[in-house]
């Protein structure tokens, strides 16, 4: 388990979520979709301040997400 912080712009503070880095993005996007009531496929995101373009079949680790990383939903 690692911690991932998820921040929705304009709605602080970020959530501290325990996640499995081996989970596929397809599963994880349901979680944030539910939490923030959004369609994760359409959301614009950054990892810290770098552009983040996830693919459903890749794991969080493969997408470069690390312990205490910060995922920002910016649009």
């Amino acid at each position, binding site marked *: 388990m690692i911690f991932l912080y998820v921040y929705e712009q304009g709605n602080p503070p970020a959530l*501290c979520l325990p996640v499995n880095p081996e989970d596929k993005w397809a599963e994880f996007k349901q979680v944030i979709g539910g939490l923030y009531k959004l369609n994760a496929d359409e959301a614009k995101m950054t990892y810290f301040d770098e552009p983040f373009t996830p693919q459903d079949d890749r794991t969080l680790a493969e997408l470069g997400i690390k312990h*205490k990383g910060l995922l920002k939903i910016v649009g």
Partner: protein
Amino acid sequence: MAKKKRGLKEEYNLLTRDLDWEPSYVPFEEMYPYVSFEGIKIHNWDRWEDPFRVTVENYVRIQAEKERKFHAIRENIDMMQSQLDLTDARWLEAMKLFAGVAFNGEYNAHRLFQYVSRHVPIPAIRFAAFTQSVDELRHVQNEVLLFNNYNKYFQGFHSWKKVSHRHWLMSVIKSFFEDAMTAGPFEGLAAIAFGFEVAFTNILFVTMGSTAMANNDLCYTAVGFTNQSDESRHMTLGMMAIRAMLEEDPDNAPIVQKWLDKWFWRSYRAFTAIAYILDYVAPKKVVSWKEAFEMYIEDQVLNGLFKDLEMFGIRKPLYYEQAIIEKDRISHQAALILHRVSHVAFFHTFAPTAEDQVWLEEKYGDTWRDVWAKKWEQQTDPNYERNYPGLPMLCQTCQYPMVFAEPEDIHKTAYRHSEYEGETYHFCSDGCKTIFDDEPDKYKEAWIPAHEILSGNCGPAEDLLNYWGIDPEDGGDYYESTDYKNFEKWKKMRA
């Protein structure tokens, strides 16, 4: 022949100078093991004098008198059912927060000043620190006893020890004092005697005191009254300690400057809770955080105190400009998040009423209209999910939820981070990041509640309220609470 009574000065000298001797069977460094590692150079330990020249005899006499008065007032408050004189029981939501913060804070200050008294070899400072240590213990004991009265009638006061040690939000103040207690003795002094007492306690006792009085809170007023005269001694110790360090050797200036930078920011961040109380919780408001900050921090501390220290090569504390920028922000940022976490709090929260909003607009003008009123509108929309859906991200240094905005952009949440030994650490501000970067080995060990809870170190999730020492009814919205309903009922019965 009758002995001639000794004068105060002679008494004081006997107590301090003559009880301070050169060790003969252990080296000085062994007797004072922490005196050198911080790098502070003192050449003449003896020349410093406490302007109050407090001796055991007059300390005990004065304090005993204060205690007599205090307990007479306390018994009277109890007997007269003074809680029904409050403007509104909503004020007690501030006192619950105060109990969680101050009881533990004062007790830890007691421990800190024992440590300072033991390890700083300046006789005047040692005795002043010793009396302060006893004062702090007196404060916490009196506060606990006095607030016990509120505990008979209101929620959220029943488990202050558990709350102040374990509640996720109380880690802010716990970590603050533990940071000072685990520093060297000179930094401990600079931290609490100067950074906290000299710079910030006026807001705590004067501003909060007048707000408590305006809301007919005789308990807090009585506490403020009996504590305040001790505080003036504590402030004098803070000033003496800083002057001693700065005047003894010019090499001390950069070390002291770093501590002033750090403890100004740490104290300032800790006081966010007070900003919330002044601007939101108080039913009858006296002074806004912005006004209090301008009066006490900008005028008295930044433009007064720090000006006086310029001759020693001391400049204003790092990031003070950001604190100034934030003066019309932090109470609102705190209130917005506290409103969302009332289901896991030991106090009730609420959205500002129409009357509150008129006052907030008057005090905060454009920022209120353009930013905060809109946020409240959004947050009180019936479709908005009020309860925060998990654990908030916390700053590694101050441990507040990460709600503070970028200094240059009020709409953008500030994020700072550092990498240390392969791990990422997050901060709410430049001030908190700088503090971490200077001593990463200390702050990497911080006990961050969100992480500890998720790691299972606070027991099972379903038992968290019990772990924190709160009942489900302690939290929630004030205007739906039993406290509110009872208070309305009791007031009517009394009328």
